[in-house]
């Protein structure tokens, strides 16, 4: 701060408080709604303070599911979301770090071509090529499977890029010293590259976990079998109950549960999250 002006500092706090309120308000409303009896929603406006039906609502959607919407119990969808998010995260990190290692630490024919092929995926988000990609997955018989949910999403130019950039900052001499010390390429990878990449891997893990957990359109297309529903897409099914108003308390309880894991990851690993996000663009 350049000069001490109490008014400006007060203004700064005011702006921040308003910002926090704006950011938090929808979630508060959702939480409040999830704690009220279904009947509350028939009579006008949503209340602003929590009701008493919270435990019952959460218990019911977690373990029994909501019969009217045909959705399975939430814990099952959460499990599917978790499997999908973790598969995507681990898969992306694994294949990216290996290919970045190959691109940086080897010279081989078609190296540049391979790099560009991977780079192109940056330009082809799944939403853009959704119809033909769906067809490929269908032809491979991967509908309604965890493989179908995760594998098509694990190629990532961003992660490969990030690792490549990071590897380029590892001093050349380190690999040379290791080579003189008798380390084979894979030994160098295991003993040097992996331990040195630890923070980068963790930061990517946070970002990619969120990416995987929040997938929406892809699971919607790939799963027709409720056993493979993920939470984020499952909510939409609950909302879209034919011809009647949604059961708001159940929907909002699911919304809260769907937000919880990724939000906890961001808040709990804020430093890594910020690093992962900001470095991605370097």
């Amino acid at each position, binding site marked *: 701060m350049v000069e001490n002006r109490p008014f400006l500092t007060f203004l700064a706090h005011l702006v921040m408080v308003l910002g926090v309120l704006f950011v938090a308000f929808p979630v508060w409303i959702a939480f409040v709604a999830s704690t009220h009896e279904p009947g509350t929603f028939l009579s006008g406006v949503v209340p602003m303070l929590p009701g008493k039906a919270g435990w019952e609502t959460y218990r019911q959607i977690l373990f029994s599911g909501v019969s009217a919407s045909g959705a399975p119990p939430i814990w099952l969808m959460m499990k599917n979301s978790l499997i999908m998010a973790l598969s995507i995260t681990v898969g992306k990190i694994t294949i990216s770090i290996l290919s970045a290692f190959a691109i940086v630490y080897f010279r081989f024919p078609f190296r540049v071509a391979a790099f560009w092929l991977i780079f192109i995926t940056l330009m082809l988000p799944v939403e853009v090529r959704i119809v033909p990609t769906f067809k490929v997955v269908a032809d491979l018989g991967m509908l309604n499977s965890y493989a179908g949910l995760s594998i098509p999403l694990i190629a990532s130019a961003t992660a490969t890029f990030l690792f490549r950039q990071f590897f380029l900052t590892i001093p050349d001499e*380190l690999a*040379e010293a290791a080579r003189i*010390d*008798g380390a084979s390429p894979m*030994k160098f990878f295991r003993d040097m590259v992996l331990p040195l990449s630890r923070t980068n891997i963790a930061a990517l893990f946070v970002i990619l976990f969120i990416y995987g957990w929040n997938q929406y359109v892809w699971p919607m297309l790939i799963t027709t079998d409720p056993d493979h529903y993920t939470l984020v897409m499952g909510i939409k099914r609950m909302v879209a109950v034919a011809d009647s108003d949604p059961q708001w308390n159940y929907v909002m309880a699911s919304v809260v549960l769907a937000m919880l894991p990724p939000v906890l990851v961001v808040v709990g690993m804020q430093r890594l999250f910020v690093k992962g996000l900001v470095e991605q663009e370097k």
Partner: protein
Amino acid sequence: MAQITLSGVKKIYPGGVEAVKGVDLEIAEGEFVVFVGPSGCGKSTLLRMIAGLETVSQGEIRIGDRVVNNVEPADRDIAMVFQNYALYPHMSVRQNLSYGLKNRKMPKEEITRRIDDTARILQITDYLDRKPRALSGGQRQRVAMGRAIVRDPAAFLFDEPLSNLDAKLRLHMRGEIKHLHRRLATTSVYVTHDQLEAMTLADKLVVLNGGRIEQVGKPLDLYRRPASVFVAGFLGAPAMNLLDAHVDGGALHVGDVQILQGVAAQGPVIAGLRPEDVHARVQPGGAFRLEFVEELGGMRLLHGSVEGQRLIIQSPLQAEVGPEMALQIAPEALHLFNVADGMRITNAVRQAPEAADATG
């Protein structure tokens, strides 16, 4: 320990750039050889070829009796100390030292014994369990050397190991390296761009320029009888004065000023004069025009010109200084070089090996 032989070694990069243009060199067992030259002269490339970190485009490198052109660096029985130390940042000092030994499947007790010995020699025993980032520059430097020593290799390769240290520490570590070499007597190849470091460390000095060897020999021999203008200008600080001159009837002239007589050459030459070999006394109308004086404490440097060419003279404190001075030069202090190729003109003046000392 082993001797290292380079014959016709060339490095040609893809794209045709020749970084090393044919080097022949014998490095005897136990010898301390220093490659010195300006950046881009090929000294590092040459060292890295010996290490096996660069492929040899042409020619042959032998370590001991073995041609090592296609031998992996790890199997060449060499150890290397890098400019930025290249310590493994996530490993403790002990792990750094043991990594290469473990990779060679050395028994545990032997590894422990060697690390203890090395740590004692280098006085790093107290921080064996620290990570490199918790060490000072000098300590890191020692660990880097320890990693080489612990291997007990046939040869040490040093790639500008002191250039990241401050001046005082550099001087100190230079002494330690010298001391270590005396103690271990391992064949060593050392690369530096610092001519003073090169002069003080080398048994044998190799001056490189543009991918070729300019001159090889004992440091003092190179200092006293530089084979070319390049070597003459590179070794010594302040550098040798190099003047455009011409010889007419045995007399050496710079411009219209006659400097010396009895020179056995003819036509234009380059005259080399070390600042400590030029003597000047105050004389109005003298050829040397003084511009400014640089006080160094024990002596002073006189900066000026002769016939418009820059000349630096090292002068004792008691000598008088004036704006115009006459020059006095002993014939044996003069170095003459061809204008065309910059090579030394031998036997142009009377020279004795101890000449420099006599007139000092």
